[in-house]
């Protein structure tokens, strides 16, 4: 395996390798060891990264303590730490809880450290391009704004209770009293994403550069919201009230289900159904969509085109992944530009039609994905400030 991966067709290097191997038994043995599938299997085990991250967090905690308490405490901490640990037979102290329990015994207040751990996913920044994150602003009916990424807890506004949670986003308590039609709006900027839950239990994930308006209390005969951009919906079942998404010039009528609506491409609305049943209503016509189908509404032509698809690539974003299945580079870069909030410039227009596949956690740096694409195609990328320049090699 080693030889295959490293020396391919390069004869000169191949000879150098053979020479090195012949130099001594030790070299040969080393080569054999590194050549074995077993060596590779162990090397690619995902546990290495996990261990490294755990150990780093542990190290960071000790460093913070030393910074705060001064060096004199350091030896004491290390000794006490080891002593207590051996006594309790705790094998690998990587979980926060275990370490907190131990350090409390030394009389150091550690609670504040748990929250301040550097939880940044991904590597250090080379340029200033960051992957997206939770960013959203809530607009109340009065026009008052609430920056959702910065607050948590319960807010009582306009007669309703709004909960903001770090993990689950915004959620509304069901409203029972009669209320005047109060409409709220959540706006997610470029480079953002946000999750929310309406009063009826419907969950909505919003992607970058998207916004959704909804009444705090739904009408009696229907639940209607208006979307711009892209969102993934998990609509709670309510047979008496169909759920309706108004997007651009068309409507998606939902009968209790999971689907993705994307209106980020100009003049087109793409709806992909995961589970359940929806109706696509445009120009007074309704077309029923079945699971694993995609409907593309073309505003100009005014028609809806349905096809069977592998839905993974359309809904992966909601779980934090990019999945590209033989997609055109143009479409890929469009999505990346929204999430990373960057501009794209094509040195050669044709390069947009290069088709690529790949998937990646989208909280990683953009360089990872671009680098991968460079290796598997004829395309090359250059990052200049906040612009990505795309060209053929």
């Amino acid at each position, binding site marked *: 395996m*080693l030889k*295959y*991966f*490293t*020396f*391919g067709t*390069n004869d000169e*290097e191949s000879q*150098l*390798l053979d020479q*090195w191997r012949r130099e*001594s038994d*030790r*070299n040969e043995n*080393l080569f054999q060891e*590194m050549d074995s*599938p077993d*060596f*590779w*299997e*162990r*090397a*690619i*085990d*995902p546990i*290495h*990264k996990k*261990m*490294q991250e755990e*150990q*780093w967090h*542990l*190290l960071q905690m*000790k*460093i913070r303590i*030393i910074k705060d308490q001064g*060096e004199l405490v*350091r030896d004491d901490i*290390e000794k006490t730490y*080891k002593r207590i640990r051996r006594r309790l037979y705790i*094998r*690998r102290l990587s979980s926060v809880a275990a370490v907190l329990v131990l350090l409390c015994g030394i009389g150091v207040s550690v609670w504040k450290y748990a929250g301040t751990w550097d939880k940044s996913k991904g*590597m*250090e920044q080379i340029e200033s391009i960051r992957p997206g994150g939770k960013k959203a602003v809530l607009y109340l009916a009065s026009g008052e704004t609430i920056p959702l990424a910065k607050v948590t807890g319960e807010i009582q506004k306009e007669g309703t209770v709004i909960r903001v949670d770090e993990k689950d986003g915004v959620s509304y308590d069901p409203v029972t009293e009669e209320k005047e039609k109060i409409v709220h709006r959540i706006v997610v900027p470029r480079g953002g994403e946000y999750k929310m839950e309406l009063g009826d239990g419907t969950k909505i994930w919003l992607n970058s550069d998207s916004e959704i308006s909804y009444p705090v209390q739904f009408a009696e005969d229907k639940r209607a919201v208006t979307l711009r951009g892209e969102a993934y919906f998990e609509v709670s079942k309510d047979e008496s009230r169909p759920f309706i998404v108004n997007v651009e010039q068309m409507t998606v009528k939902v009968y209790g289900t999971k689907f993705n609506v994307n209106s980020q491409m100009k003049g087109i609305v793409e709806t992909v159904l995961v589970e359940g049943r929806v109706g696509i209503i445009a120009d007074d016509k309704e077309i029923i969509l079945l699971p694993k189908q995609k409907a593309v509404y073309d505003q100009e032509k005014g028609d809806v085109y349905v096809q069977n698809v592998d839905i993974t690539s359309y809904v992966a974003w909601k779980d934090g*992944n990019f*999945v590209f299945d033989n997609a055109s580079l143009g479409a890929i870069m469009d999505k990346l530009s929204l999430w990373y909030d960057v501009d794209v410039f094509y040195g050669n227009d044709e390069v947009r039609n290069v088709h690529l*596949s*790949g*998937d*990646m*956690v989208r909280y990683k740096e953009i*360089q*990872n994905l671009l*680098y*991968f694409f460079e*290796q*598997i195609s004829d395309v090359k*990328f*250059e*990052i200049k400030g906040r612009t990505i320049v795309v060209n053929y090699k």
Partner: protein
Amino acid sequence: MFSDKSIEVVDLSDSKQFKANYERYFTALKHFAMHYLGDEEMVFDLLQDFFLKLWEKGESFKNEEVFKVYLYRGVRNNCLTYIRDKKRAEKRLEDYGSDEVEEDFVSRVIESEVFSLINQVFEELPESCKRVYRLSLEGKSHQEIADELHIAINTIKRHKNNANHYIKDRLEKLLVLMMLISSDI
């Protein structure tokens, strides 16, 4: 754009560099120390101490090669010290360190670096490629992988091709790297 150019100066007092170097060398140093200590828990303890001291000293190094040698020698010395202390405490007759030959040290460094590099390059692959590749290394056939992951056989071939292509490109300078390591140490 993504060059492997060595940094001119390695400055450990810079927290960003400190973290980057930790991430870069951890897997290799762990693999390396395991040769001496054999116990994962002890190795983690040792590396914690080692990096804590590195952080406290906040030293700078002229170049990457000098830094690399410093790291490996430092960890090795710590390992040998630990073994000697343990031996003294337990009064055993086994002798780990004193007849170690310099060549052994170099081989171990090379092996650890290669191990870590394979790990790093592999981590850069997309998830689906990784999944397919791991199963493939276990000896599973394309059909078995297709059944397990619920994807088409063509997709599997595509993933494997992409992965091979990528790994090859990234590792092609490996021999040069290995020779460089041997000459520096």
